[in-house]
């Protein structure tokens, strides 16, 4: 008590006036806060968080790696297309309609096409953005500071997801449009309206595809305490989807519908075996994306399931219109989006239930 009065007495009058004014300023600012309505505030906080997430990522060193990765995909995909296209046409392997879209699908001898590169590397973009989204904040000690602010906790994870999705969308569109525009200059191909629409839809698919991996990475970053663990877990899932799902699908399909016997039953099983394998493969977002992308980019793809010769009889051999192609991949689009949202929902729930303590 004695200490209290002594210090107050010690403070000079000038200093006190100054400080009182400052305190008053601050108090009045506080009153201003409350003037904002609740809904408006919610949106405002989300915007601030989104801005911070985006700025933080762009300023981080990871951004350099990220740009390099995207540039590699773009350049090698483009190189493959330009070097492979002429030869492919000369050999008669490629139909000459929708040539502009071939820029994204044609591969050279050893270099895969842009589309397959994207199917393979797209997950990396998502994982890159999200594998330490929550746990780095936790280990840095910023998360508990953040949750003690007047905001809803879900705004944190939503803003992280949206910021990640935004940056990957910018990257995907930048690289896709770059290939398109440089392709126009170097090859002299003029894209038609339909080609541009197809390219746009394809790039949207890419964004949703990377969004799925982003959601997956955020899920692991919520569940795992260390960023390294969550990165490894993400890569494990990615490898599983890219490689092992197709192996397993084949094994399971063969076990359910054996085709090796050479008897009548094996012949009957052939169709079922193929459908079963296909459907199992489609569990993997990797396959889902690859199938949808090739359908959208190639109007010549008329069907994605097994069809009998009877079903094909009388069909006119021509390209599908954009609407029909979309109809074919509509389940893929909804499936991918649903997968993305489901995974994000799991991470959302687990984040909301977590107790946030200091490091």
């Amino acid at each position, binding site marked *: 008590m004695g200490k*209290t009065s002594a210090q107050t007495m010690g403070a000079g009058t000038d200093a006190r006036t100054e400080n009182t004014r400052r305190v008053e300023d601050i108090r009045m600012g506080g009153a201003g806060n409350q003037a904002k309505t609740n809904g408006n505030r919610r949106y405002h906080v989300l915007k*601030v968080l989104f801005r911070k997430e985006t700025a933080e990522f762009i300023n981080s060193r990871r951004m350099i790696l990220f740009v390099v990765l995207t540039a590699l995909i773009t350049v090698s995909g483009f190189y493959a297309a330009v070097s492979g296209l002429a030869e492919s046409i000369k050999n008669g392997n490629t139909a000459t309609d929708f040539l502009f879209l071939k820029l994204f699908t044609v591969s050279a001898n050893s270099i895969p096409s842009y589309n397959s590169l994207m199917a393979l590397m797209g997950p990396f973009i998502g994982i890159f953005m999200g594998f330490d989204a929550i746990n780095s904040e936790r280990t840095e000690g910023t998360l508990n500071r953040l949750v003690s602010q007047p905001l809803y906790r879900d705004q944190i994870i939503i803003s992280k997801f949206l910021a990640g999705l935004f940056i990957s969308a910018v990257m995907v569109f930048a690289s896709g449009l770059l290939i398109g525009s440089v392709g126009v200059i170097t090859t002299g191909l003029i894209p038609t309206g339909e080609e541009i629409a197809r390219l746009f839809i394809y790039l949207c698919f890419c964004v949703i595809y990377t969004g799925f991996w982003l959601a997956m990475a955020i899920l692991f970053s919520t569940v795992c305490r260390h960023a390294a663990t969550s990165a490894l877990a993400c890569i494990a899932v990615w490898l599983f989807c890219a490689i092992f799902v197709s192996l397993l699908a084949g094994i399971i399909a063969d076990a359910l519908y054996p085709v090796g016997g050479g008897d009548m039953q094996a012949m009957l099983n052939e169709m079922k075996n193929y459908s079963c394998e296909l459907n199992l493969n489609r569990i993997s977002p990797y396959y889902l994306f690859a199938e949808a992308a090739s359908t959208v980019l190639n109007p010549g793809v008329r069907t994605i399931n097994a069809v009998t010769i009877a079903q094909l009889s009388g069909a006119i051999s021509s390209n599908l219109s954009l609407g029909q192609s979309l109809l074919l991949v509509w389940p893929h689009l909804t499936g991918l989006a649903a997968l993305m949202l489901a995974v994000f929902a799991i991470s959302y729930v687990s984040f909301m239930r977590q107790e946030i303590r200091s490091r």
Partner: protein
Amino acid sequence: MGASVKKEFSGEKQLSGEELSQKEISEKGEKAEKAAVEPMAVMERERVPQDKNSDDIVVIHTESLTKTYGDLTAVDHLNLEIRKGEVFGLLGPNGAGKTTTTLMLLGLTEPDEGKAMIQGLDCTRNALEVKKAVGYLPDNVGFYGTMTGRENLRFMGRINGLDGKELEERIDSLLERVGMTQAADKKTSTYSRGMRQRLGIADVLMKDPDIIIMDEPTLGIDPEGIRELMWLIRDLAERDGRTILLSSHQLYQVQRVCDRMGIFVKGKMVACGTLEELGQQISRDGVGTVELSVYPDNVSLQRILKEIKGILDIEKNSDMYVIHSAFDIRRALSKKLTEEGYTIMHLRQAGSDLDEIYRKYFEKAGEKVG
């Protein structure tokens, strides 16, 4: 002077805030008017909370607050009352449930039983409103390393709905207040622990909280830093009239800065009160103990000491005598020693020190202090 600033302030507010309610405007006008007529009155109002007797509003209040993790009861039926403008110290060893208590006060953890109220708001149900009024400085506070100190503060200010000139002004004034103006534009990844802690305080003050909760604020800071920090904490309570709850296991610092303190053992608050009250509580339970050191320290001293009435036992550890007695013998002791021509170098009633109070409570609660 105050009035002109205020006018400028409300003018800017009207420009930027689209939805400034009528009530706020009139309130503001009233404030400005008051300040213009009698600027001293405003200052007096600011200083009111220092007078604790006239200001007995309970701002933090818990009622049999309980939290269990499996078999472990982290907080066990805690009843706590903290009044406005008070610095309250929550003392206890690691794992005593201090952090859990602060988390429940912030609505970050749901209590299993009982309730916590801050300014009449339920901390669990009205967490958002509570978080507007309460600033929280976690132990080992962290910042976004890729951003500078100023950018970190700006981000927090924006979350709390500040913007534009008002935001920048507050950042500048707070940086100055915590003495971080020099380092404000360096990346926070380069900051030392003490700097982070000071920036943390500025960060807490960004939203201008009425109540500040600090978790182990002195951990890992050098003595000079601690001294400054303690001064700042007292300043926040005295000059701004903020209520401060700080948890710590570093007793010495806490005893200097707190008005009242509660001692936490295994989730239970075993004692609560001012330093004197705690000391009295303890000395009532046991006999008085005095530490004594005199010059010259010769053989006849022991004999003289034994002549004094009421002494039960004398221990000598190095150059210090520890004398146990049935009642307070300090007066008799000093009189006798002066008569005999000794110079008293040190005479102190043991048990008035928080360390000892703390130890006693732990012994009582069957705990050993490391």
